[in-house]
């Protein structure tokens, strides 16, 4: 178990600045997920922690010890790669033993560790096989096993589930969460998939263009997105974002108007909003109610069984998605009347910063 500190970490490839200046504390024993769109610098950051990429700026500490000048093997971290990176000419057993032999561990101890890991991952029957004789899911297990036997201070995962099919992915998610409870090590997990982040993370760090937009528990980032980017990135379907105009204040909350003139009440304190040149309103599908004063017409109806998502076109051209019951009778072309739950409406100022109900 070890905390990891990133102090003003920066990375440039030539003149291309991938990570400008990033600082954060990863708490000992937590499951931290770096979440962000592809190309935002997640892998680069993870690889800098692992020692596979040099820092252009800043420092990295593991357990209070500076590691950014140490070679990868001496940082006490283990990494699970996206394409597994198993040694193709070695058996599963040798794949797991390789790192232990290299540090001169005795054969007896190596055997014991491999047996333990194989038991945890239920893969005793695979030990004599070569990677080419394994399925994608089994290779994934071996890659995780290879990390476990090293008993690292921290596990680093770089999109390890992205090559698995949907069923296997959700099963592996559960297993990783269970593994985290079992080994109680710090785990850093990189993904572009918000479902993976939401389901496994103790905390999520949402990244955008090499910067951290917000760090928080899954519910924090879902309920109180710090920026418009986070609001748009977290949640399926994506949060509705509408351009609005500030009208005034009522009952301690800002009142805004949609482009079509419809009045929307919120519980967002007005302080700090008036100076913003533009304003955007954000509301999730489950917080859009039917029977309000905003008229629209159903354009697309998505029936998921337990609930229905209806995409309604407002007269001003904006598209609003709302959640309806599973047995909703709405069909395409029907007129709908919508309202927004004032306590769940967010406002984003011209700097993209979110303002939420107090």
């Amino acid at each position: 178990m070890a905390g990891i500190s990133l102090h003003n970490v920066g990375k440039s490839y030539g003149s291309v600045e991938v990570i400008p200046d990033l600082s954060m504390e990863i708490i000992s024993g937590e499951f931290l997920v770096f979440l962000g769109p592809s190309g935002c610098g997640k892998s680069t950051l993870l690889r800098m922690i692992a020692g596979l990429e040099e820092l252009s700026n800043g420092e990295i500490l593991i357990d209070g010890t500076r590691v950014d000048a140490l070679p990868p093997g001496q940082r006490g971290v283990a990494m699970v790669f996206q394409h597994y990176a198993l040694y193709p000419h070695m058996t599963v057993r040798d794949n797991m033993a390789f790192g232990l032999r290299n540090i001169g561990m005795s054969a007896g101890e190596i055997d014991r560790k491999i047996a333990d890991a194989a038991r945890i991952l239920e893969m005793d029957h695979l030990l004599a096989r070569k990677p080419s004789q394994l399925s994608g899911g089994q290779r994934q297990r071996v890659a995780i096993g290879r990390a476990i036997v090293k008993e690292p201070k921290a596990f680093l995962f770089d999109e390890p589930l992205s090559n698995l099919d949907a069923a296997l992915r959700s099963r592996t998610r559960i297993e990783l969460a269970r593994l985290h409870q079992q080994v109680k090590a710090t785990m850093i997990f990189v993904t572009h998939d918000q479902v993976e982040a939401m389901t496994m993370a103790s905390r999520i760090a949402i990244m955008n263009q090499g910067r951290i937009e917000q760090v928080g528990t899954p519910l924090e980032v879902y309920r109180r997105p710090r920026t418009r980017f986070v609001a748009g990135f977290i949640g399926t379907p994506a949060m509705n974002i509408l351009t609005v105009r500030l009208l005034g204040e009522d009952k301690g909350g800002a009142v805004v108007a949609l482009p079509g003139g419809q009045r929307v009440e919120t519980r967002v304190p007005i302080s700090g909003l008036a100076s913003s040149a533009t304003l955007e309103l954000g509301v999730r599908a489950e917080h859009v109610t039917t029977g309000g004063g905003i008229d629209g017409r159903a354009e697309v109806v998505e029936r998921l069984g337990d609930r229905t998502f209806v995409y309604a076109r407002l007269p001003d051209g904006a598209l609003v998605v709302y959640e309806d019951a599973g047995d909703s009778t709405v069909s395409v072309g029907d007129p709908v009347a919508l309202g927004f739950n004032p306590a769940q409406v967010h406002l984003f100022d011209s700097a993209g910063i979110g303002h939420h109900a107090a």
Partner: protein
Amino acid sequence: MSAPSQARPVRVARRDADAVGRRTAWNALFIAPYMLAFLVLLVVPLGLGMWLSFQDYDMLAGYGGPVGWENYERLLGDRIFLGSVRNTIWFVIISVPAFVGLGLFLALLLNDDSRKSSFFRSIFFGSSVLSVTIVTLVWRLVYMPDRGLLQNIAGMFGLTAPNFMTTEALALPGIAIVTVWWIIGLPMMLFLAALQQIPKEVYEAAALDNASRWRVLVSITLPAIRRTIVLVAVIEVILQFQLFGQANLITNGGPNNASRPIVMFIYEAGFRDWMLGYAAAASQILFVLMLGAAMLQMWIGRQKDGG
């Protein structure tokens, strides 16, 4: 209404069957140019050579009819021929490991995308395009006793350079050095191509696993390119058994036949002494030697595959 639509699939199926038949016939035509060249330039000469090796065919004395194994029996008693077999095998034994070892070493050294590496890759490969005449001319200037580059360099340190062209024991190693210098580019390129197939992530995993450079080479790189090592060895065995030009131009087989290879013996028997049957028999022996060596290499390669 239903009758025509039912008849259609049957007609389609029949037409397909016809098309398949026609396609095969046409395909044969497409490979015909190659087949023709293959037959006329390879299979026929090969068969002709075999036939010739059992004939008494002397261009000066005329055709003397079939003689059975007589040519082969004479060869086994011919000290110059046996010497050339020994020379050739010795040349293969010293040059092939050098090609494999040095080719791999250069490839490992130059396997990155720095400008320096790409410059040296071009340099090492560049000499392969030179003709044997130019290469041997250059190296004769290096090896020349008294005034050669080698002697000049050695002279600066007050030493005497070994004389590769006139010392019996050094003639073949000297030719091997020239040959390696000349065409080390091909093995190097083959190894580079193989090295580039190894995923970078595997090396990164090894770095996280505390593997030393030596461990990485032995446990990851070499197993990954094992097939290419066998391939290079087989190619070089086949090429180096056919040593001719360098030996002909640098030492002319001397001193005292110490660097006379089989191909040179065949050339002299056939085109200087005009004993075509005799030369053909020597060619068959060379063919069997090459075939045997290549098969042995591939067999060794397969043995390791199991482990």
